[in-house]
């Protein structure tokens, strides 16, 4: 990654008594694609609007490209923005919309026109240039909004849930298109989304937010494989949780027995929550092999999900059932069906450990 392009320091935003953002600090590197991800009300849009200057923060500083922009109005900052609602000017054609930010910059008319052409080529809408927004599909409208935001070559591109209003198919397609465009132009980009799949597929780094604080910053792989908090573990992907207490070196006790864990640094008797992803639980053909953390349980239900199946298993004595993913082949081989019994193991190195806040 390049240099730090955007630096947010100790940023707090209050609406009356409600604290929407609490002491947020964050760095975004040049050319990076960062996603703010979190449930609604987590403060991600508030943070974006503070970066844009649309809703100024209560406290804290923002530096962009070495310039302190903390209290500047939007018109004196350097960004392009795309909203969920597209916000295209309905009475202007596609090309007039894209040219909107170019015209008053005293650019020559042919320069403006060639720039508009360039951008419409970029988003593949040259043949739609004389149409009005209402004559385009949702996906096309959002591409026009993107072209309009990029027209003035802003240093920073802000995307506020740009794909949320679109159909699933269009969304997947546009996801790739935006990502490729961003790579090609190398424009530093921040996108707000509540859709984890969107964040995982598009972002270089993800900022997971909850209740106005940052829970974790990391690459999609880091966020998925090593969620830094219970919240992130639960929010991203699917996760099994087991309430337990540390009972010895690298060992935990829970209602259904003992489990080996990979961490031996936690003091005894500490209450912990163990977590393991459904695809990390192994289904076994025979019991008694050398696999650790073995147990057996009754299959409660089998859910067919196309490429794989998700089995809900109730291990004997356990508080809650486990979700386990298996390939269709394996499931057939083990003859898994509701009501049957199955052996499984929980690899110690795959078990995540979260300590209760003390």
């Amino acid at each position, binding site marked *: 990654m390049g240099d730090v392009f955007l630096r947010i320091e*100790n940023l707090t935003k209050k609406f009356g008594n409600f604290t929407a953002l609490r*002491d947020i600090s964050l760095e975004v590197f040049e050319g990076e694609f960062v996603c703010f991800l979190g449930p609604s009300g987590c403060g991600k849009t508030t943070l974006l609007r503070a970066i844009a200057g649309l809703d100024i923060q209560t*406290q804290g500083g923002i530096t962009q490209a070495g310039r302190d922009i903390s*209290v500047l*109005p939007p018109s004196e900052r350097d960004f392009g923005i795309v909203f969920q609602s597209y916000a295209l000017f309905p009475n202007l054609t596609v090309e007039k919309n894209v040219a*909107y*930010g170019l015209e*008053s910059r005293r650019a020559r008319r042919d320069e403006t026109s060639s720039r508009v052409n360039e951008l419409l080529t970029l988003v593949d809408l040259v043949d739609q240039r004389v149409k009005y927004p209402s004559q385009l599909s949702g996906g096309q409208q959002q591409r026009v909004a993107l072209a309009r935001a990029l027209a003035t070559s802003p240093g920073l591109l802000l995307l506020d849930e740009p794909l949320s209003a679109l159909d699933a198919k269009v969304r997947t397609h546009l996801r790739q298109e935006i990502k490729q465009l961003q790579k090609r132009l190398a424009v530093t980009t921040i996108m707000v989304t509540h859709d984890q799949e969107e964040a995982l597929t598009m972002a270089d780094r993800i900022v997971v937010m909850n209740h106005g604080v940052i829970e974790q910053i990391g690459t999609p792989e880091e966020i998925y494989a090593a969620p830094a908090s219970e919240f992130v573990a639960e929010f991203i992907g699917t996760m099994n949780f087991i309430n337990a207490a540390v009972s010895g070196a690298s060992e935990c006790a829970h209602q259904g027995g003992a489990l080996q864990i990979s961490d031996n640094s936690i003091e005894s008797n500490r209450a912990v929550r163990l977590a393991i992803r459904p695809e990390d639980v192994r289904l076994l053909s025979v019991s008694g092999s050398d696999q650790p953390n073995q147990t057996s349980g009754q299959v409660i239900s089998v859910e067919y999900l196309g490429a794989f199946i998700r089995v809900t298993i109730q291990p004997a004595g356990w508080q809650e059932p486990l979700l386990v993913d298996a390939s269709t082949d394996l499931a057939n081989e083990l003859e898994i069906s509701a009501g049957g019994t199955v052996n499984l193991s929980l690899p110690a190195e795959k078990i995540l450990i979260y300590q209760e806040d003390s």
Partner: protein
Amino acid sequence: MATTAVQVGKGSGVLKSKSSSDDRVMRLFILVIGGYLVIALALPLYAMFSKSVFNSDGSFVGLSNYFSYFQTPALVYSIKNSLFVGIITTLITVTIAFILAYGFTRSRMRGKPLFKTIAMIPILVPSLLPGIALIYLFGRQGVINWALFGNEIYGPIGIIISEVFFTLPHALIIIITGLSIADARLYEAATALRASRIRIFFTVTLPGVRYGLISAAFVVFTLAVTDFGAPKVIGGDFNVLATDIYKQVIGQQNFEMGAVVSVVLLIPAALAFFVDRLVQKKQVALLSARAVALEPKPDRRFDNIMLTYAIIVSIFILGILGMCQFAALFKFFPYNLSLGLTNYQFDLMDGGGWNSYFNSIEMASYTAIFGTIIVFYGAYLVEKGKGFGVIRGAVQFLAMLPMAVPGMVLGLAYIFFFNAPSNPLNVLYHTMAILVISTITHFYTVSHLTATTALKQMDAQFESVAASLKQPFYRTFLRVTVPVCTPAILDISIYLFVNAMTTVSAVVFLYSPHTTLASVAVLNMDDAGDIAPAAAMGMMIFYTAAGVKVLHYLLSRGIESRTQAWRISVAN
């Protein structure tokens, strides 16, 4: 990741955005609009309140004017009369309007557009006009005065019939809106549950329209209580508050008592206004829900009943209008019923002659042009401005206030404020400008609400996008906001024009010999006994207002077809 201890950000004060040049310009403009409303509304009202606690020598007398008011039985009796007229009119008008609106929205009767147009006619005439028609119909020599069975038309009966005529379109618009937001799915669900037609009416229709009915009732009540035209023409000895103000001020030159009556009249109007605002908010909440439009099913018997009803209401309206036109054309009623244009020789009568007609057109044009600019721009600044919250809130409040101020009260307040020798603005007194200012102010609220509604329907992010593209706000205002809001802007200008043509109440205190107006001429000619010329002038107002309406319709159609390529999305 546990949150580390919260650090205090750089400096503990709350950050404030540096204002952009746009913000500063917008703040300047909002101060200008706010200043206008203070001068044209707040200060005159203040002058009127203070006048009511001074005596004619200018010394402070506390509430003694009020005591002497309440000790004068003739004056206090007017309160009862006004309330009586208001309540009876409200009951009759809301009933008539509800049934008519029900026919328009729930039946498939023929000729809906025609009957709707006819029902809107009363908006285009001064409230003096139905009174004049009633004199010709039911007066001592009236065409069908036998129909009153010996009762006197001069008095409550005449006033109430006039007020019903005058308030019907206002109630109708509100109730039609209330009935139109019905969700077809509710009706389908009720029918699927085998509810009878009557049961559906009481469990689905009526609850859905209740806010509309309440709102209509308050609007009608306010109009009827504060109206000056009808009781002036046909009230006879039946005094109401609005005519009392006029008599105190014009007849007896007792300005202090006029101010007291004005304050008394302000109370029911203001009360009705605030209740209506409360109810309107709930109505809006109903409106915003996504509903499937109801498409009434054909039902021959029901459709025919509704058609008959619409015809009867139309006969009432057209009868009054037609009577006026004939009254204007009869050479000398009831002795010489041959038709001619002698009554149109206004220059031979009191009231300002043809000049007052042209003055009215001039005044209405200025009101429409300047009023639309001020109102729309003001609404834009309130809606889209950034920061300056207190000032924007204050402007919003002042913009809503005129609805609660009866025209008579506003006019009298203007006398007190603008005629004060110490006020440098008294150069405006007796000019065309003061007529325009008072009329814009009088009709400010409805125009402001129309503008606000249109502005709220626009994407709230337009301004954010424009700022990120570093475009000055006025460019987006002119290139996007105004074109998108053109239908609303036209509506506002036509509303202001028509009301400026027909209004009597505020301007009756403010015209001068050089600035007589057509509507005031109707009043004065009627006062002088020239009733036929008064009817003729009233019809001139009607034809002008109707002509402008037709023009507006054609213009809107033209704009609609030119912009339909992009307007579809705005409607959605």
